[in-house]
């Protein structure tokens, strides 16, 4: 009951049904050339690779039976939505995947293109496009095996549209990986006040608490868009060590793995979740408070 009520309270800033917010773009514009400084403004995102890449890799490995030595993601087509400077696209490319990275901000794409250009293997495996998700839907229906939307959904104006677009470009039984920030008192204090204003872990103004997404809401939207949520895991950043770890609680950051239902074409409420529950560290936020 309560979650339904929450859904009807639309985010105050969005009047559009698009997946891109102009104000958000402006924020990232200023930082477009700083993506690849491992010790700079995006250092927390760099170190997030230490848990999000293994999460994606191991989930996909456990679902597939082929293993190409040395190239665990060989043959997998991945869409990296909101790829920024390519911080996540590159490791996925190194693991053998064919990656398409999209970002509405041209400067980000330019930075990403430049960075990958020095490595001939990556230059071939990764394609970057300066587009929003909606813009590529028509030409990419059911094209991708995997979509990753890491640290993105807290920046989109209309989450339902976003998820629907994901479903359209994803193959049936394809995987969707999302990492984002919960909307709690704790995430306001730690995620905004401490992280942005006091410690500078995240550039000031990057996040707006109003747009943070509670896992229950995300799960609900996913399930009603034809996805089956397989895993929800809490993540925690330790500013002293500069590293991320998996935790029980989803009150701050969390990651979700969902699988698009096998029925071709439309999205509808899914039935029972599939028996192939793959993760050791699984837990659904719906059961917790």
């Amino acid at each position, binding site marked *: 009951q309560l979650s339904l009520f929450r859904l009807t309270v639309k985010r105050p800033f969005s009047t559009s049904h698009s997946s891109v917010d102009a104000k958000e773009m402006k924020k990232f514009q200023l930082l477009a*050339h*700083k*993506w*690849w*400084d*491992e*010790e*700079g*403004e995006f250092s927390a995102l760099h*170190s997030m*690779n*230490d848990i999000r*890449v*293994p999460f994606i*890799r191991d989930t996909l490995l456990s679902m597939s039976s082929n293993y190409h*030595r*040395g*190239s*665990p993601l060989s043959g997998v087509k991945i869409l990296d939505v909101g790829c920024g400077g390519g911080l996540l696209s*590159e*490791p*996925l*490319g*190194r*693991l*053998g995947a064919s990656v398409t990275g999209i970002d509405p901000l041209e400067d980000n794409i330019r*930075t990403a293109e*430049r*960075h990958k*250009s*020095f*490595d*001939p293997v990556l*230059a071939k495996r990764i394609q970057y496009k300066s587009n929003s998700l909606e813009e590529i839907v028509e030409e990419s229906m059911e094209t991708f095996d995997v979509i990753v939307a890491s640290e993105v959904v807290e920046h989109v104006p209309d989450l339902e549209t976003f998820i629907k677009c994901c479903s359209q470009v994803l193959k049936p039984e394809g995987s969707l990986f999302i990492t984002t920030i919960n909307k709690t008192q704790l995430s306001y204090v730690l995620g905004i006040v401490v992280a*942005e*204003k*006091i*410690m*500078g*872990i995240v*550039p*000031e103004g990057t996040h707006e608490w109003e747009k943070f997404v509670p896992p229950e809401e995300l799960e609900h939207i996913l399930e009603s868009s034809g996805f089956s949520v397989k895993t929800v895991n809490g993540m925690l950043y330790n*500013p*002293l*060590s*500069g590293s991320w770890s998996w935790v029980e609680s989803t009150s701050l950051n969390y990651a979700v793995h969902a699988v698009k239902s096998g029925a071709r074409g439309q999205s509808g409420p899914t039935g029972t979740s599939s028996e192939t529950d793959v993760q050791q560290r699984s837990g659904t936020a719906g059961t917790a408070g």
Partner: protein
Amino acid sequence: SSAMAAVLGRALRPPLRARLRPGPRAPLRSAASAEPLYDVVVSGGGMVGSAMAAALGHDIHFHDKKIALLEAGPRKEYGHMPDSYSNRVSSISPGSATLLSSFGAWDHVCSLRLKPFRRMQVWDACSEAMIIFEKDDLDDMGYIVENDVIMSALTKQLDAVADRVEVFYRSRAVGYTWPLPSHSCDTSPWVQIELADGRRLQTKLLIGADGHNSVVRKEAEIKNIEHQYDQSAVVATLHLSEATDNNVAWQRFLPTGPIALLPLSDTASSLVWSTSHEHASELLAMDEESFVDSINSAFWSNINHSDFIDAAGAMFRSAVSLLKPSGTAVRQLPPSVAKVDPESRAMFPLGMGHATEYVQHRVALIGDAAHRVHPLAGQGVNLGFGDIACLAHHLSAAAFNGSDLGSLKHLLKFETERQRHNVSLIAATDVLKRLYSTRLAPLVLLRTWGLQATNALPPVKVRISLDWGL
């Protein structure tokens, strides 16, 4: 306030910028340039460099990667082992044997030749003090292997992965160009290497395995703490007076330096005698008979004993045997030497060294390039193999995570682990070397009692054994 926040936030973590060596600028290149790009280049094709390249080449996560090994010398063919033993041998610990077998090299070593030993007896020339290392189980404590045998095994295993590891023989690197910190996107992010013949390579990670005078280390401007000892090591291949099980490694500390006899077979042993430069030259110059006499005298003579020390030592020993009856060891007698292999005598100067940093952005040092020790502990190459096991582990995990192989994040983990292990061992070896270089009674007494006490105390002995990889 946001700037202050940024400063505060970053001040909490050790600054990595200091490790991003400025150095000569990489040439301006806009896209993948003509020079071949490798994932890893190992500079130096000795035992440690070759083993590093082989370990990575056989790693499953490096299956699709490109590795290059640069060796200044020519390719040596090890087709047939000569009957006579080489005078350069190494004491290989069980840990090193495990590393070598992880990529199939140990089997080759075993099929060529090696000598396991079960026991080490170490004693002082100035007293009766002695310590014996022995394993309770029937396992071997270590193996004496000729360096040529190890190289032969490594070369075979490199050939087995020739599709991944390219070995450049007769190739010396004459120049390195370091990349700027990676956030500056206009210049090549890779390390540029220029070879003597003008060829150029690029690499994501450069591993310096080029010995104690490492060029990689010097070019990277990594400070090295070094010290030349007033000693040279004399090596030779010796034939024993009579055949014996010969499964004990012997070392006696003379005031001029330690003399060690390492078993090669039932009838042959390898000599490593560290002594002053002058004495070393004399030993090389004298005729074979006198040489053999000197060795036997060094092991058997009690000329350095003084009554005082003997009495004090005996007293301590009785005290120990009262408190801990099993704490005094049975002294075995070392074998006596009959002959030396002609042409097998050689000498080389000794020193110690330790690099203050093992890694920088896109650079890692292993083996003697990172640390150099006195042979008295028989550790030199084992430290290098330990470096390889650790670095290969971290690089393998990094490759499986899709990380940039030259990233300081995992390189620093390697450095921390190895420095923690190496520094205490190198320091202890240096201390031992100095402690045993004197006849002064107080110090002799100290080390006599120390040695006897250590021999009597299992926990301390076990700890030393573990640290030395025995």
